[in-house]
């Protein structure tokens, strides 16, 4: 049982023109097995929340706290956060030229598990995970995210999540740029990991579409750098119908 606790988190983005305040006091608790949908209009700070929890150097924490099972996440380096059990599936996964997917996955898994996976079981493990995500095994020899289609990038993110087995995963707009089939495959992947590992999920999205496949336990509406309304799955239905207009004008 793990708990990610975000308390009164305040974050600025570091730009050449100076720092700009984005998050204005976010409170959120995600426990193992729970799925939280974070929904909000573009520019509301959803991605900032995701990236600052993962430790992107572009963001400056100006107040508040983030803990995972009591440990101070904000004091950890980026890789330590991953080792502690956090995972961020990125909206725009980064290309790493010359580094093959297989080398990357193996290096990451070795770092997270603290020892290199046994060659024999590892090959099978990767193959099984790839097959279930409908990823061609020839993919292993390609460079990380280089020349991947939008759908391939997102499936590759979920593949990593499946192999790294985090405690809490943040999925940042994983649904963006996916057609219906790809969305279904990716969602099934997330659900499979959830079923198998009691994963806690923070699902950041603009649209309700993905919530048809990944059922949230809680829905939080994000606007202007903080959570402005919370509820159960029914809140998503309301957003589907009325949009974000009332939160933007509010």
């Amino acid at each position, binding site marked *: 049982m793990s708990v990610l606790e975000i308390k009164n988190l305040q974050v600025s983005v570091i730009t050449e023109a100076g720092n700009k305040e984005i998050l204005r006091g976010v409170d959120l608790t995600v426990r193992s097995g729970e799925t939280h949908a974070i929904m909000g209009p573009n520019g509301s700070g959803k991605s900032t929340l995701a990236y600052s929890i993962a*430790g992107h150097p572009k963001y400056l924490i100006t107040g508040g706290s983030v803990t995972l099972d009591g440990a101070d996440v904000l004091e950890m380096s980026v*890789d330590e956060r*991953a080792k502690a059990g956090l995972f961020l599936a990125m909206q725009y996964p980064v290309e*790493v030229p*010359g580094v093959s997917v297989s080398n990357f996955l193996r290096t990451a898994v070795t*770092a997270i598990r603290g020892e290199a996976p046994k060659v024999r079981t590892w090959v099978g493990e990767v193959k099984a995970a790839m097959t279930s995500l409908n990823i061609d095994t020839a993919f292993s020899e390609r460079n990380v995210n280089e020349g991947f289609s939008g759908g391939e990038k997102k499936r590759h993110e979920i593949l990593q999540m499946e192999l790294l087995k985090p405690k809490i995963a943040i999925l940042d707009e994983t649904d963006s740029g996916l057609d219906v089939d790809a969305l279904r495959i990716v969602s099934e992947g997330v659900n499979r990991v959830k079923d198998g590992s009691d994963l806690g999920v923070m699902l950041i999205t603009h649209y309700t579409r993905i919530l048809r496949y990944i059922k949230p336990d809680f829905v939080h509406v994000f606007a202007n750098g903080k959570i402005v309304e919370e509820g159960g799955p029914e809140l998503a239905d309301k957003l589907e119908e009325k949009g974000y207009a009332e939160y933007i004008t509010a």
Partner: protein
Amino acid sequence: MSLLTTNYLTPTGREEAWRFTPLKRLAGLHDLSSLVKDNVSLTANGALPRGVSLTVVADSELPPAYDSNDIVTNRIRENVKQISLLRIEKDSEVAQPIHLKRSCGPSAELSKLVIQAGVNSRSTVIIENIGSGQIGEEIEITLEAGASLKFISLQEWDRSAVHLGQHHAIISKDAQFISFVISVGGSVVRLNPTVEFTGPGSSAELNGIYFATDGQHLEHRIHVNHNVANAKSRVNYKGALSGDQARTVWIGDVFIHKGAEGTDTYELNRNLLLSDGARADSVPNLEIETGEIVGAGHASTTGRFDDEQLFYLQSRGIPADIARRLVIRGFFAEIINKLKNEDLEERLMKRIDDELAKAGE
């Protein structure tokens, strides 16, 4: 040693071709201010495959096949009496790479090699430059019609070495030239990989890797002369620099002459600065005298680490130092993987790792 007629061309450092080069560190190879010997320094490393011969011939029997405006090349032509000739017979399919090894003498020397790839031959030539040496070299490479030659020049010198050279390829109709120039060792390495075409359907792929650490000067001056129609060229050089006074220069000149319709060319140079105090110059030049071409382009980037790449790798649990090494290895792997020679790929990756260790990465 004859009196030089090219004395008036002795570079002063103000010339475009020499303005980046530390003339004081060239062991007199550019002005013959010190004793410079004519030396046959290349030998076959292992038995030569069938259809391949390495002989030494008098310079009078092998007049230069092209004009060079490089001062060192011209000094070589005036002074070198014995030329190494590597001949790959026509129609030879040489599966095993042809390994040549260089052993330099104790003093500065000049050396010339001619490689003749016969009609429709296929081969790979690897030249290993290791140990110490002060050498001015010319390598004249002729690819006869339909020949395919992979030419690999490894500069894995000791840190004292000085190496100035021109590698000129003359590429005939339907011939394919692929070169890899890999410079990691030496005090000063200054190479001019140059190519010209003599018939349509010919292609040149020029790849390079360099890694300069403290005080090293590694300079590569590429010149692609598109003087006939329907030839293709690709240039891709990648370099990393680390440490105080690490210095690299990359010049990429591509000329597309009036009659060179259907030319297809692209050149790329990328430099990765790993520390302060290092300097990379990168100067692509493209001159086009005809618009009737398939394509012509160039790109040059010099920069530090991509923070987004490091963040991505670290966010998967990979520690910062390993992430940096992965990115640097990946940067070079793009070219090294094209060698398609497992032993060599492994050896070069290990050399990159050694350089990284030296650089404290």
